[in-house]
């Protein structure tokens, strides 16, 4: 596979994951704000903004709808949902010939539907529904990708992009609730906020299946970090990253694969051999930062080995 193509596929899915994450956070938030007190609602918004590292885009007096607009539809904010979707589409366009018509049409249609919302206010008519529909469309896109695209090298680069992004986003979200970013928010999370956290990861029902409806922060952390089977847990993403790395660049000689595989092994070991008790007694912030940093290192190693390598090193 062309290195440039791998690069585009990888980023296409990183951006799609980002868009989906934003959509879900906002959807969950919009559906639950109504039941909260004003202060709690503000703190909850602050958590969403912090989880998306979007503080600098916000102003003091922002109301829910203007925050939503900035996070979702601000075309000039490179990290908005719409911009992420735009970047995903740009990357998909670059490799249009590698995607099936179904994948392209689903992505393109969703983008063409949402793009006008940057400039008109029609989305205000029923925001929760819009975000639910967007999430559905993104899930459908993922389903179409999985079911129409051959699961060859390109698909594994998509997987790699999705899970490197997801692991980092979930780590960031957990940091807002358990780690260093927590202190920046005035109010402590309430029972209600823990529910929101679970829902923000589509995790409420899967969590209940494992732990019953008893909401305990350390159980939530354990579930979102270490559950092997839940697709939005960090451990799950780590395993998918490992799988993907075993399958990309099949023709690359072992010497070039070594650096990447060593990092993947280290990440897996970090996820496998850490106990939730240790983390809850104070080291969780460092742990989350460590996972995120290792994802970043894997990203760089993949680029060095397969994408931007010096041509002389492979002749």
């Amino acid at each position: 596979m062309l290195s440039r193509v791998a690069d585009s596929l990888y980023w296409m899915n990183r951006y799609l994951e980002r868009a989906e994450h934003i959509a879900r956070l906002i959807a969950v938030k919009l559906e639950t704000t109504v039941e909260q007190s004003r202060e709690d609602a503000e703190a909850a918004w602050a958590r969403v903004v912090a989880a998306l590292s979007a503080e600098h885009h916000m102003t003091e007096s922002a109301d829910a709808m203007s925050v939503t607009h900035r996070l979702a539809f601000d075309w000039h904010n490179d990290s908005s949902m719409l911009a992420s979707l735009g970047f995903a589409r740009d990357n998909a366009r670059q490799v249009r010939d590698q995607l099936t018509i179904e994948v392209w049409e689903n992505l393109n249609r969703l983008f063409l539907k949402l793009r006008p919302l940057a400039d008109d206010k029609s989305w205000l008519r029923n925001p929760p529904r819009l975000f639910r529909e967007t999430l559905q469309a993104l899930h459908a896109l993922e389903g179409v990708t999985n079911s129409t695209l051959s699961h060859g090298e390109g698909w594994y680069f998509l997987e790699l992009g999705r899970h490197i992004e997801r692991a980092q986003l979930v780590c960031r979200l957990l940091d807002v609730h358990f780690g260093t970013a927590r202190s920046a928010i005035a109010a402590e999370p309430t029972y209600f906020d823990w529910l929101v956290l679970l829902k923000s990861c589509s995790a409420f029902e899967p969590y209940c299946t494992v732990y019953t409806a008893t909401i305990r922060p350390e159980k939530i952390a354990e579930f979102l970090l270490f559950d092997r089977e839940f697709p939005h847990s960090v451990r799950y993403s780590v395993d998918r990253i490992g799988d993907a790395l075993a399958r990309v660049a099949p023709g690359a000689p072992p010497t070039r694969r070594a650096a990447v595989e060593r990092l993947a092994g280290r990440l897996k070991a970090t996820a496998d051999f850490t106990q939730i008790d240790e983390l809850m007694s104070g080291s969780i912030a460092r742990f989350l930062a460590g996972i995120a940093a290792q994802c970043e290192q894997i990203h760089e190693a993949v680029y060095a080995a397969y994408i931007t390598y010096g041509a002389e090193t492979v002749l």
Partner: protein
Amino acid sequence: MSSAVKLTRVDPAEPGHTPYTNYRLGAAYDEMFASAGAVRMHYAGLAQSLADLPGDELVRRQQACETSFLHQGITFTVYSDKQATERIIPTDLLPRIVTAGEWDRIEAGLKQRIRALNHFLHDIYTDGRVLKDGLIPRSMIYGSKHYRREMRGLPVPHDAYVNVCGTDLVRREDGAFVVLEDNLRVPSGVSYMLANRDVVRRAFPDLFRAQAVRPIDHYPRELLATLKALTPVRDDVSIAVLTPGVFNSAYFEHAFLARQMGVELVEGRDLLVNDNVVYARTTSGLKRIDVIYRRIDDDFIDPLIFRDDSALGVSGLFNAYRAGNVVIANALGTGVDDDKAVYAYVPRLIRYYLSEEPILENVETFLCREPKSLGHVLANLDKVVVKAVGESGGYGMLVGPHASKAEREAFAEKLKADPENYIAQPTIQLSTAPTVADGGIEPRHVDLRPFILNGEQTVIVPGALTRVALKRGSLVVNSSQGGGSKDTWVLSN
């Protein structure tokens, strides 16, 4: 030529409900109607289908077709500032139909023409016999900005310089197909030919079956076979389509062809040359490339040799080509033939190289460098179109019938001062074909661009891109100026 048409009357059952209310025949040859109300035989099936369609069904199908194109990304992008708007090249649902007899003549004529053009290119890049014999003035060739001195003496596979050619034909008032222009550099449009077929086949499935339309879907396979036969490499030939990238208006076509052929779609930045061998940068390492079907102009293909500011090309590519380690299709320097003055010589080239009479005529062209022609042009300035040979896009042009007396007189002076720089052609009425317009059907002017594949063999897939001027009365079929396209049906009997 088309004298064998049997006329069928179409009388809409309810007068006033005919979609042809606004169908006014002009001086141009009409593809469907021999005269008012008299449908040519090969259009009878279509006419019947249309008559059977309920009220707004035609418009509905037309809209469905446009939506399908947009969603499939069969679009070109119009850029202004930071906004990028995607437009589709409008496809008109009503097919343009060519009879088997007409097609046979077109096919034979195009094959003859491409043979002569390849002989000519080979000649001007080797011995220059045609120049020594004085058939064509040297200055016309060596002075052309598309003549590549770097190509002199360089062998090309099968002596086939032009591997993919798109020739624009138009139908004169008398019904004869004549050649308007040869596109020998990087002609585009073949993906529209294929995509239009897909859409129209879905819109008129029964009609399509009933008509015995010759298939065109094997074009990508034929293109691949043509490209493969250009290299002596036999096992595991590595072929790539070289595109300028996604911002090029024909990018959809590049991706489409690469995918349909199952070959790599590469940009210049994917390739590098080491020790005269071309490689693509892949995740698994460098992959050698044997044949490049390039959709980039000569000027941009190698910044080391040609335009040094090219960001699209591959540095060192030409030296790899010279060393015989890679084949580039089309060969470089084929654009010489695109020159309007050289075009005028093609019938003479056919006689010179093949000792045959041209099967397809040119549009009558006067070379102002020839005193007799100049006299004729000056005497008929109000009837002709005068074009500067090296220019394109309407620059340096006089449209006689539309120009004022003063403009014509001023132009006459320019002509006399520099006759070599000009050619003149009579204004021609392109033929018209039925086209969906304003909810009804109206005649619109069309041309015809078949695609010729040429390497070890010459293959013409029986179909073409029919371009249509969607504005009433307009003769401009270019997509940039309100043109659309149509599916072209070549009948098998």
